């Protein structure tokens, strides 16, 4: 005989505002099989959980229903409480009275009636629940880090430092990411390369880290603890085991005018190239789109120049399968394309540049050797205008969000310019200065007071190019209440930070959510900021939201800590929500085997004591099963059930609504 307890939570006012919780509890008390019913302001709090534990013990409950928030929020909390009181946790169910009821309705009477229905449904279900036990699976203690920027490097180093193996996958030919392109970093103005390149070398030489550059994730199977990831090693056309990185090949390459991605299109590179002199690994790849040999079938200058015979034009992409237990996504960001701003010249003015281009102009290793020279004619600009919030905080044309890093790097740009061109003018147009960070506000003040960067609060409405080459910048000074016109020689736009291209596809491979802007979604914005909805997949850096270097590094270390925490256990407990085949009624039609997207259903031979084959049936490998229910739906003899969601349970839920 079922003895069910019902516990209705007010969730402060979240539920109680629209649902009469006491009335729901009273109605539940009258439901068949219910022997205990109560309501409380915060059921998830310690006194609330104590109510559940006490009722289970005193009333000898065989099942419990908690009418509260979404099970995604607190099912683990309440099931743990049930287990502490000696009730199998899978005998406790939640009725979602918040997301499915109070938050979406206004009429109190109707919402209360619906809440009673939701509770009744779960009471009927829980009567048919049976005790389930977690599935234990071993963990593969190797981590995959996707993205070789500072976040990926940091996460890889921390995991490797904790004694676990790491595979670091990077799409480009070198690790280092955007940080390698920066000149100096705020708020200390230390040289970006000087602090980054030693870490790049450390990552490449660490015995626990396997570096896979010029590679991309192609396919993902499995689940937390046991992912099988297919990685595409793109053809490099250079045998790195023979290559010494001497540079004879790129010196001879005749395709010399390819815009350099690393130099933000301000410099040129060859078709066989390493992105920058400090690249790690410091060996070249051939860009197959621009290589004359690979596109037109004749050239081979690099192969002739190579004394080691390392160039191989017949190289092919290679698919490598690896087994990993956890994944850190650190795919980083790009800058938004400001050509959508017609009023700023729609991307057509050579001297209206973006932040990365300025970084390369200011960098000692950049195309101008660190001299600020404008792209159109190589002159040193005497007046430079910096425009913040270009595409950020502009829902109409760009993005609704604040890109967070631009206030700081624009102040840095203004400073660097003034340090290099003492008599020049640096004028910053801004909406607000957002300098929340250690030493950040002081840095802004330093730009204004010590370096004389001029700040004008207001938007720029138009940039046009006068026939003498001057860029006329017209804007508003909203503090002075007047229109401003500046005759500038160069304009730097602080373009919005957007996620790396192709990020959505990668997220789909790993089952990670992303927002409308393409940033990866964390599991909880406050309490689980580095985890994702996909167990075992963690986030680091700007792929989750715009971040500066300190924040990216902090999050990368946090993700590494999560990975090491996961790997600290020898095996993993998994929810026992898996499919089970009734072997007595299975006719072995194999429809489920073909339908299963995870390859979790296998043939199973039933033999008698003498080892003679009696018959073959389908059997679910519970280590692989994800509980999706596809096989349940496709089984023509109705002999597969999903634990915790059996046909009997689901039909009883529906039947009670009539």
């Amino acid at each position, binding site marked *: 005989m079922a003895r069910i307890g019902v516990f209705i939570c007010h969730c402060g006012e979240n539920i109680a505002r629209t649902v009469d919780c006491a009335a729901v509890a009273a109605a539940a008390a009258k439901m068949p099989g219910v022997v205990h019913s109560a309501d409380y302001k915060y059921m998830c709090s310690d006194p609330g959980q104590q109510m559940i534990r006490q009722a289970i013990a005193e009333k000898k409950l065989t099942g419990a229903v908690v009418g509260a928030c979404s099970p995604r929020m607190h099912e683990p909390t309440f099931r743990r409480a049930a287990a502490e009181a000696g009730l199998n946790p899978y005998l406790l169910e939640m009725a979602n009275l918040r997301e499915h009821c109070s938050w979406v309705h206004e009429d109190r009477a109707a919402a209360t009636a619906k809440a009673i229905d939701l509770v009744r449904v779960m009471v009927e279900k829980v009567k048919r629940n049976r005790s389930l036990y977690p599935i234990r699976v071993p963990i593969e203690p190797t981590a995959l880090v996707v993205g070789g920027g500072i976040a990926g490097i940091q996460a890889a180093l921390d995991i490797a430092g904790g004694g676990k193996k790491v595979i670091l996958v990077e799409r480009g030919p070198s690790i280092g990411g955007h940080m390698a392109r920066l000149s100096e970093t705020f708020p200390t103005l230390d040289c970006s390369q000087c602090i980054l390149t030693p870490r790049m070398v450390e990552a490449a030489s660490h015995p626990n880290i396997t570096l896979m550059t010029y590679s991309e994730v192609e396919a993902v199977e499995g689940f937390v603890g046991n992912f099988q990831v297919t990685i595409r090693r793109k053809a490099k056309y250079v045998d790195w085991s023979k290559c010494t990185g001497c540079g004879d090949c790129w010196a001879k390459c005749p395709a010399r005018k390819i815009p350099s991605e690393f130099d933000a299109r301000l410099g040129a590179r060859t078709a066989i190239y390493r992105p920058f002199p400090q690249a790690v690994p410091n060996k070249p790849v051939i860009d197959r789109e621009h290589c004359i040999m690979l596109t037109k079938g004749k050239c081979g200058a690099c192969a002739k120049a190579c004394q080691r015979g390392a160039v191989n034009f017949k190289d092919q992409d290679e698919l490598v399968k690896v087994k990993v237990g956890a994944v850190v996504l650190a795919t980083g960001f790009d800058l938004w394309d400001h050509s959508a701003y*017609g009023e700023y010249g729609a991307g057509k003015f050579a001297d209206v540049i973006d932040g990365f281009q300025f970084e390369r102009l200011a960098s000692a290793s950049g195309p101008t050797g660190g001299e600020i020279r404008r792209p159109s004619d190589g002159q040193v600009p005497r007046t430079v205008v910096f425009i913040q919030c270009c595409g950020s905080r502009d829902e109409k044309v760009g993005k609704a969000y604040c890109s967070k890093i631009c206030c700081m790097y624009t102040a840095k740009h203004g400073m660097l310019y003034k340090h290099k061109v003492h008599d020049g003018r640096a004028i910053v147009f801004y909406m607000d200065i957002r300098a929340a960070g250690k030493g950040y506000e002081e840095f802004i003040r330093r730009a204004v007071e010590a370096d004389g960067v001029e700040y004008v609060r207001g938007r720029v409405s138009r940039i046009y190019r006068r026939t003498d080459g001057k860029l006329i910048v017209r804007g508003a000074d909203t503090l002075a209440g007047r229109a401003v016109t500046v005759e500038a020689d160069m304009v730097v736009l602080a373009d919005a930070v957007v996620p790396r291209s192709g990020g959505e596809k990668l997220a789909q491979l790993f089952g990670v959510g992303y927002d409308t802007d393409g940033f990866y979604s964390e599991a909880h914005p406050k309490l689980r900021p580095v985890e994702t909805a996909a167990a075992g997949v963690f986030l680091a850096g700007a792929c989750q939201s715009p971040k500066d270097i300190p924040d990216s590094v902090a999050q990368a270390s946090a993700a590494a800590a999560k990975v090491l925490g996961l790997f600290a256990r020898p095996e993993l407990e998994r929810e026992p929500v898996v499919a089970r085949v009734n072997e007595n009624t299975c006719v072995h039609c194999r429809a489920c085997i073909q339908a299963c997207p995870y390859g979790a259903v296998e043939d199973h031979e039933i033999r008698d004591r003498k080892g003679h084959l009696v018959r073959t049936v389908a059997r679910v490998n519970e280590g692989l099963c994800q509980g999706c229910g596809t096989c349940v739906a496709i089984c023509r003899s109705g002999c597969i059930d999903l634990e915790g969601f059996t046909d009997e349970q689901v039909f009883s839920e529906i039947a009670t609504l009539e």
Partner: protein
Amino acid sequence: MTPLGYYPGCSDHGSGRELGMSVHALARLAGVELKEIEDWNCCGATAAHNLSHDLAVALPYRVLALAEAQGLAEILTPCAACFSRLKGTVVRLARSADLAARMRQVTGLEYRGPLRIINVVEFVNRLLAGGLKDKLAAPLAGLKVATYYGCLLSRGENIIEGDDAENPASMTPAVKAAGAQVVPWNFATECCGGGFSMSFTDAVVDLSEQILADARAAGADCIVTGCPMCHSNLDMRQLTINSRGRGPYDVPVLYLTELVGLAAGLGPKELGLDCHFVDAMRLLSRAEPRPA
């Protein structure tokens, strides 16, 4: 062929007479019948919405209701300000049933809508696509044109359709069809001073001079516009600018319809080319009939 509704507006009878003349001349050439809305009234222009938002909608509402009752489905409004008021009213009425009900009550007239309101650029592009392009007999080869849109032919969400508000280009096909060349310049959407020609002449003089200066710096032989207000500010105020010792400017300012009319070989007087303050007749020498 169903006639195209025609809303002349006040400028057709005053400072923008040559716009109306050239519109009618092109329509005749293309065989398009223009039917003037009977008993039309003022669109309200800038004055009405400074006084009352309802009045600014009620005036065009009456025009729309009359046009609909007279069996017209499309209305050509050559004046850019009239166009903006009429089309703005169509858009607002489609958006708000409350406003439509109030307007029914205020005017005592029924408008179901939506009527299609066409500006002068759309009109010219439509004629060109409808066969006028083949009738252009005297291409203005080598003529450099600065296409000037101002505010009313470049701005207004759902009012100007299919063009870029910051870098509009809807006049380009017509200029090219006329055999002329569009010069890249910076001030295509700058403010000419609009309705302040009388009340704040100084502001208009300053603003219009900037536009003229940039057109000249870009090497334009003339400015082409589609708005009677821009036209009078740029054309008439050149004399004022020059009299103040600036310039001197001598840039002919044409309506788009005049430019296309010239290319079609229409007579200058038929197009109203002799009504301008800055001599535009000299551009005639550019329009030479295509050798047969």
